[in-house]
């Protein structure tokens, strides 16, 4: 029973356009959400996060949106660049313990 799900295993976008990656969760106790980016043969690297008290957080080209009622979050990348091509993992944590529960990842391919 995956508590964090990324239903799209892959996404292909043209350079300069918007990339939208989606994530759904089932545990309403999650209070902190993160996106990690992973290149092949490397560990995941932190990208952006959002607390459950907010519905939007922006950092440069990256924006994360949180819809608590729908238990859904999304990552927007605008404009997309070829260097953004990687696997993106959504993760969530409870208030105590800082344990991260990851989604299955979405492979983003940005075509020049």
């Amino acid at each position, binding site marked *: 029973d*995956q508590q964090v799900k990324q239903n799209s295993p892959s996404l292909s976008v043209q350079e300069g356009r918007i990339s939208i990656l989606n994530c759904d969760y089932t545990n309403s106790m999650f*209070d*902190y959400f*993160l996106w*990690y980016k992973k290149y092949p*043969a*490397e*560990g*995941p*690297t*932190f990208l952006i*996060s959002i*607390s459950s008290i907010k519905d939007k957080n922006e950092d440069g080209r990256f924006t994360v949106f949180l819809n608590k009622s729908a238990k859904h979050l999304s990552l927007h990348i605008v404009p997309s660049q070829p260097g953004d091509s990687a*696997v993106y*993992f959504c993760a969530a*944590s*409870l*208030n*105590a*313990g*800082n*344990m*991260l*529960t*990851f989604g*299955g*990842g979405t492979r983003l391919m940005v075509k020049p």
Partner: protein
Amino acid sequence: DTAVSQTPKYLVTQMGNDKSIKCEQNLGHDTMYWYKQDSKKFLKIMFSYNNKELIINETVPNRFSPKSPDKAHLNLHINSLELGDSAVYFCASSQMTSTDTQYFGPGTRLTVL
């Protein structure tokens, strides 16, 4: 000056052997973790250590034992390796707050033959 390092990067071994993976962080963090990424690419928490004490132990076989000689190191020992243990193992570290991000090592690809 790598923040979180793991050795070895690749590990190929026979079933039944005992092996260890080492992890070191130089970020001054007080919490370290081990994650397993299986063949389906799911990343799952295995252990978490805070100030040398185990605080999370997900349902992993007791053949897996984390050992933390100090705050900067969390090693993973695996006894009697099985085929299903083949995976990529990631070490991570953070400060023990719910809002602090975790920094991951590059991973160790374990292959059990």
